[in-house]
Each structure stands twice: as C-alpha cells, then as structure tokens.
C-alpha cells in the first residue's frame, strides 16, 4: 500500500517545567451580518474591504476554553488570525478577553484563500512562531462560512491528532497529557479521550460561555500596540501554497437560491374554523390519516 503523507507526532516534553501551557487560539474575522454582503463579481468571493469585522462568535467560546485552562494550569494564551489589516481591532478584543498576545497574519499574497490555503498559512505560522505549543484551540465553525474545516486541516498540516466538539479539558502537566470531554450532538453522547500533547481541538459552540471583554485591557492593547503583525516577509511561505493560488477550490458560479413553489394559502379568522380548514387540507394532501 502507498506510503502515507502523515508525519509522526513528537510528544510534548516541555510542559511541567514551571512555565505552564502554551495555547494557540486561531480566530477568524467574521462578517457580522451574513445576509447583507457584497460578492466580488469575478471571483465570487466575499468582499471584505470596508466591511466591519467582528470576532467569529464561536471563537469566543474557544478562547474561553483556552483561558480556563490557563487559569487552572498557568501559561499563556496566544490568539492569531489571518485577516485583512482591519483585523487588528477584533484581535485587540481577544486581548481584552484575556489573551496574552495576539498576531495578525496579513499580506496581499494571502488574499483569496480557501480553507486549504488558510489552514496552511495558519499552521505554518504556528510552527514558525510557537514550535513549543501544547494545544491549538479553535472554534467549532465560523458563522459566515460554516465549514468546520480548519481545525482538521491545521491538524493535518502539523501531522497531529485532533478532536472536535470539545466541552471540557483537564491537563496533567507532569505527563504532558490532556483529558478531553467532547459532545456528539447527533449521537447524544459525551466521549472522553486522553491525548499526549500537542493536540488540536475545536470547541463545541454551545459550551464555555465566554467571559466579558474588559474595555480597559482592550484599550491597553491598542495603546501598547500589543497586536503584532506578521507578513510573508517573515513567514516566507511559497506563494503557490497560499492565497488564491494555494486554493484548489473555486467558486464557479453563484445564483440566487430558488425556493420550492408553495401554495401560500392563508386562513384568517375563527380558530375552530381554521383548525377544521387545516385538517381538511392535510387529509386531502394525504399527510395525515383520516
């Protein structure tokens, strides 16, 4: 059988030396009102210029999960995002919530990326800036693209194990292990796993309700210029692996969703008559038994 392209994992050795955990939280700038957007007529991509960006709401749950681990076991939480230059503002709000550092990965060559190219850029930034990380914690999905691709893709680029829908975690600093509880909504079960760190997780969107953003911390971040920018001058990623050129998927066409034609019969009036009218019609349709 053909060789796999999966690299083997090097277990974490650095935890337990008094520094606590290094947790990376990649976050996305989501477009707030997903029904009022403009699409580029040529690439069909979302036009992000001039659109106010906000932190993807589920990434706040992910950040909360990371901050709770930091509160319990010590260490640092670092957020990073591949976003246009205007992304600085929402990264400041991650510091406001309690992150120690934030990085904006921004460069023209990164524009037009699909999830393969975005995950490559994010994974390589993590490998370059924080090779000693213990956990990468991500949101379950984003509200403006809802793919839930990125966490698995980052794990694949880094050749690491991963787990989705995590709700809780417990770290053993001495052993370098983490116990993760996750919720599989469609099966109605909680599963508990134990991993040798490093590991990549995505956090179940209805767990870990996020703490408030401290305005004074956010202002500190702004005044102290705490959000650092990283461009491809530092990362030196091959331009064919990032942005539009590093993206195998294309949006070939867009169209308005065509609704299924409906009868649109409406009854106004006495509730008893309404009920009779409905039951008669549903019986005629054959969807309830007479």
């Amino acid at each position: 059988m053909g060789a796999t392209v999966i690299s083997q994992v090097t277990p974490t050795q650095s935890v337990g030396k008094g520094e606590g955990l290094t947790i990376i939280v990649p976050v996305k700038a989501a477009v707030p009102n997903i029904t009022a957007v403009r699409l580029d007529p040529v690439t069909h991509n979302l036009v992000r210029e001039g659109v106010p960006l906000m932190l993807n709401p589920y990434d706040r749950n992910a950040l909360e999960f990371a901050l709770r681990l930091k509160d319990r076991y010590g260490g640092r939480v670092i957020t990073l995002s591949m976003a246009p230059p205007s992304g600085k503002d929402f990264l400041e709000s991650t510091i406001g919530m309690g992150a120690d550092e934030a990085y904006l990965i921004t460069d023209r060559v990164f524009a037009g990326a699909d999830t393969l190219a975005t995950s490559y850029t994010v994974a390589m930034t993590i490998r370059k800036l924080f090779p000693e990380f213990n956990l990468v914690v991500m949101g379950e999905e984003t509200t403006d693209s809802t793919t839930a691709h990125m966490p698995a893709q980052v794990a694949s680029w880094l050749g690491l194990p991963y787990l989705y829908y995590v709700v809780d975690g417990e770290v053993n600093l001495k052993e370098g292990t983490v116990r993760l509880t996750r919720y599989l909504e469609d099966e109605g079960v909680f599963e508990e796993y134990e991993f040798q760190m490093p590991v990549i997780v995505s956090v179940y969107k209805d767990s870990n309700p996020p703490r408030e953003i401290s305005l004074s911390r956010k202002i500190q971040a702004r005044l102290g210029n705490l959000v650092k920018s990283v461009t491809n001058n530092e990362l030196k990623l091959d331009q064919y692996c990032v942005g539009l050129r590093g993206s195998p998927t294309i949006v070939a066409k867009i169209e308005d969703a065509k609704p299924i034609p409906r009868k649109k019969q409406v009854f106004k009036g006495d509730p008893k008559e309404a009920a009779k009218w409905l039951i008669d019609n549903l019986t005629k349709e054959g969807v309830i038994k007479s």
Partner: protein
Amino acid sequence: MSTSRICPEWPQVDKNEYRGIWVYVEHQNGVIKDGSLQLIGKARELASKVNVGVTAVMVGHKLGDLVKEPIYYGADRVVYVDDEALAVYMPHVYASVIVNLVNKYKPEVVLFAATKRGRELAPYVANTLRTGITADCTDLDIDVKTRDLDQVRPTYGGNILAHIRTPTRRPQLASVRPNVFPTPPRDTSRKGEVIREVINNLPKPNGSLISIKPVTKGDSDLPPVEKADIVVAAGRGVGGPEGVKLLVELAKAIGGTVGGTKKVTDAGWLPVDRQIGQTGKTVRPTLYIGVGVSGAIQHIFGMKESKIIVAINSDPNAPIFEYADYGIVGDYRQVIQALLELLNQRRAGKGS
C-alpha cells in the same frame, strides 16, 4: 499531466488516473448511518452519468456482515479495513486509513455524510491528500466533459447558492448533511464485490478513548427531528416551556415529533439536538408545522425541503407565510387547542 507550477507541498496528480465515485460509509453500534446510505443513492446517479462504479468504504473492527449492506443500497463494491487497532474511533487514524485507500484506488470523488464525525473526518482526509473539499452541499452534479464535481452549497446566510469546483486536483471531496437526499430502498438481491484491505502503517493514536456516556434526555419518548415524518417546530412565539408542552401534545396526537428554532433551543425550552436550521439539523418530513416561528432564513434553510409546510403565527406579515403551503394567522394557543379537540373527536368518532 499538468506541469504548471503548483505548491511544492502538493503531489502532482494526473486527473485521468482518477476514476470512480466513493462514499465513506459511517456506522455506529452495528448500524449504518442514514446519511451514508442516502449518499450511496446520489453516488449512483453521478456514477451513471460518467460510466463508473460506486464504491463504499468502511473502516472499523468486527464489521462482520455489515460490509455487505452498502451493496443492498446501490454500491457496486465495498472496500473495507477491519483491524483491532480501529476498534476505537480516532479521527486522525480513521482519516489516515481513508487516505491510504484513496492513494491506492484513486477515485475521482469521495463523499462524506456531514454527521458530527463526518464533519470531523472529511477535512483531514482532504487536506492530507492536498485537495479541495466543500462542506454541507445541498446538491451535487458531475460535468461529463471535465468530470468536475459541481458542488452546490448555500452560502452567506442561505439565500445565495454557490457552485464550487475543484478543477485541477483529484479526488474531489464533499460532505452532505443527512436528509438532504432520500434513502434508497434496500434490495438484498443486489450483488457486488467486497474487498478487504490491510494497512500496515497506521499512524500512532497518541491517545485513547476513556469513556462514552449517553446524555440523559427528558423527552426521549419522541423520535429525533431528523427521523420523524411529521415535525412540529416551536418558535420564540410559543412563549416558554409551557407552550412547548402544548406542541408535544399536538405532535403526539398526529404521530410526529417536536423541534425548534435556535431561539427556542438557546433559551433551553428544547435540547439543542432539536434545533432546526443552518446551524442545527436539516429535516425533510412530509409535514412541517411551524408554530410561533418567524421564518428567519437560517431556520428556513433547515426545513424548506419539507413536503408540506404549515405555519401558525399571529403576525400576518411573518416571513414564514412566504414558505408555507397552509398558513393560519392567529394566536397559536387557540389554534392548537382547536386542532387537538378536532383530532380527539375524530379519534373518538372512529372508535365508536
């Protein structure tokens, strides 16, 4: 073979070497997931357009006769790996098994049911193969000339459909939510090939499953929303848990189940696994009754394929009436009470 410059992390692929439609068939406790069976049906359609076969892929331990099931639903062939090391599901290990099989057989398309596990698995497989993937497609087609998979997915809130393609890479990966396509009939007279593969270089699990605990559910006597033929959906307009109780009564009287909008599950009036919509479940029952549901696009997204749609809402301008076959303007309590009385009378009438 394409010689244009590509990312050095990507293997060169010759599109012409890749043939056949694959479905990853997910199973749990000896039962195949409906979403996977539904994809076998769709895969048949795609395969016949380009004259290739449908292959089902299965991964696990002690699979036994389960490996024959995909044939009965329309697969021509099953390729499976049965290994003690796969007794426990580990995302990166299972994904690596699929990657190995794809590298050996070179299918042009691999489809995944977008169950929670499917959503977890598929992007790792796609990424490790350095190819594209499209999540939550609502339709699939194949271009007979280019053999590109036309992956249709709603985007930016659901009112725009995007057609996504992976023109230069193979295989092409896509996931589809359960219940977007119908389940094909089971036909035990169908014949097909069953091939067992052995994989020697599984990645280290680097972890283990410690425990599985079912969530205790208060309303477990009602079927899950994605499995019911009749769904009564509660919206914010039902006012609270008491209102939901009335809907449960209606659901029971007509042999259905209850679901709700995000506002209702967020408020805790129903468990989240009953949320219908873009970020919840997709349902396509024969009858959907929305009660106190305004008809936000994110909700509509998860129920618009229902055969008959009924809306009960006190606001005559509620958007849901635009999507409904039968609408009743009025206070839901009065209407539901009247419905329950009528249904009771009918039952009593029949019994006498």
